[in-house]
């Protein structure tokens, strides 16, 4: 019996002797397709990261982080300081708007009206909203904000906040779902009102997971370009004001410089790409670490 059956890792039993050759070959071909798919996905990842690191690393001098952008893009020199600050500032303002709103929205969905008709509609629309193209968000903010108030970091932040909001709502709701009901009941039994239960028991219990979801949303927003093109303008100098005057961002700089045929500009695009990718990866990895820790505690 044991000669006849071959057990694989996944517990699969193969009746090897009675399995026809053509079926075995087909099984083998399917495996080759699956493994091949993974390899096909790894190639562009390795190429893109490789190019970004190799072509970008030469740019990262101290000047890169501190100096203003050069007045003439085709010449070398200058730095990316205003864009780095711009990206951080715009993303931070966007997060300051989207995170409280998103977490509260998720609280509504999970702790209050989630199963009612309105709750289902909001949940469905939040899912749909994650699919709204970022350029449409940019046009939207352009029409409701930029036309009246001019180019500024705040316009870009508004657009990014709109992109982050549905992601934060949906990930936070998933995390609230993981909080065991017993915790809520224990809190009620101690005489806490519902809002206190949510603020002092439910949210702290879900904190790690929510943080991880928020960081992923921030990482995605930090790399966005299209919503910023119409809303923040193109400044060369550092602009720390949120509401006044145009600013710039790493993604916008990559886009602008990639379109030029000049070597110095393209080099600057690669440098900005490396800076942006590093920023996004750090956020993503932090989010994964937090999520893994949460999962471990959840299993224990």
């Amino acid at each position, binding site marked *: 019996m044991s000669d006849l059956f071959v057990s694989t890792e996944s517990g699969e039993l193969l009746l090897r002797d009675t*399995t026809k050759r053509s*079926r*075995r070959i087909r099984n083998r071909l399917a*495996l080759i*397709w*699956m*493994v091949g*798919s*993974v390899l096909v*996905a790894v190639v562009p*990842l390795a*190429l*893109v*990261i490789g190019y970004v690191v190799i072509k970008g690393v030469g740019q990262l001098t101290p000047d890169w982080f501190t100096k203003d952008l050069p007045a003439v893009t085709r010449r070398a020199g200058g730095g990316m300081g205003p864009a780095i600050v711009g990206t951080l500032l715009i993303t931070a303002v966007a997060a300051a708007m989207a995170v409280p*709103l998103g977490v*509260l*929205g998720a609280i*509504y969905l*999970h*702790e*209050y009206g*989630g199963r009612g008709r309105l709750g289902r509609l*909001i949940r469905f*629309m939040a*899912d*749909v*909203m994650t*699919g*709204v*193209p970022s*350029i*449409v968000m940019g*046009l*939207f903010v*352009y*029409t*409701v904000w930029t036309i009246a108030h001019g180019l500024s970091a705040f316009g870009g932040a508004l657009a990014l906040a*709109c992109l982050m*909001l549905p992601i934060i*709502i949906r990930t936070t709701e998933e995390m609230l779902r993981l909080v065991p*009901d017993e915790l*809520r*009941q224990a809190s009620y039994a101690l005489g806490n009102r*519902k*809002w206190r239960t949510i*603020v002092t028991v439910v949210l702290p219990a879900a904190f790690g997971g929510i943080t991880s979801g928020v960081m992923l949303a921030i*990482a995605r927003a930090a790399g*966005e*370009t*299209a919503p910023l*093109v119409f809303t923040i303008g193109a400044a060369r100098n550092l602009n720390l004001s949120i509401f006044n005057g145009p600013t710039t961002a790493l993604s916008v700089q*990559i*886009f602008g410089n*990639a*379109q030029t045929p000049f070597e110095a500009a393209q080099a600057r695009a690669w440098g900005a*790409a490396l800076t*942006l*990718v590093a920023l996004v990866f750090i956020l*993503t990895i932090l989010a*994964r670490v937090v999520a893994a820790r949460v999962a471990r505690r959840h299993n224990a």
Partner: protein
Amino acid sequence: MDITPGGSSGGDVASLLGVGPGRRADQLFYSVALVAGLFVLAILGLIAASTTHEAWPAFRSQGLSFVTSSTWIPAEGKFGALAFIYGTVLSSLLALLLAVPVSLGIALYANEAAPSRIRRPIIYVLDLLAAIPSVVYGLWGVIVLAPFLGPNVYSPINDAVGGWPVIGWFLNGSSGRSFMTAGIILAIMITPIVTSLSREVIATVPRAQREAAYAMGATRWEMIRLAVLPWGRGGIVGAIMLGLGRAMGETIAVALVIGSQAGQVTTHLFEAGDSMAAVIVNQFGEASGNHRAALVGLGVVLFVVTIIVNVSARSIVARFDRRAQGV
């Protein structure tokens, strides 16, 4: 007082919300949370209203020809977006054609065939692919990929089969920045989302169903075909449609590699074209008046199309979810 219709947790306690000391704070908190939730609906409504309003001059002056004409000459006030709609659809379908087999392969491998110790690295690879900003793919596409593909891949293919009937209609042209390059870049970008959604679907296939297939003597591939794929079909279709929505809305990477050739409606995949999102971002800076209104109008069309795709996809996924939970 029932202010928590069907609150999912808290049970009977919820009905005590409206009484006792501190009820004001409770009601306030509820209202704040409700308003936050309503923001989603408000923003979606506002997007539709404000962009349509801004684009109205263009819609009114062009009428139906806005979507049926492919003549886009801003200087003459002619705004027919058909070529851009065509470019968006063509590049997105190319992306699906390339990304779906790969995504399904990865999803099936990660969930059904991979040894457990390499599952996690596969997921990391997908996470990283998803984390790279689209503008970085665009940068790589325009500086590295397009200059390589044009002379080294497209050109030889064009020379070899470009004159043939049927195949030649498609495999024609030799421009590095082209529909095909846009499709390839988009395929890389949507692979992570299609894969991860498919994986979620595949993970819900009941164990008993797989074991039943194995018990009948199925090989792993036969088990996948008999037990996994039929079960997951709805969800996988939903995942593919969400990928389609993502591809159609993608702007920056496409703007950099599609070649920005206005008015091209051609089956030649290796020729330059343009897409809705790419036109908006490339022309917006120098546009004013009706031209700008027309570009916002393109955004409205894009919004409507992606909403339709997303609503259908989410409905399919939701129906699938209900079935998965029902068993």
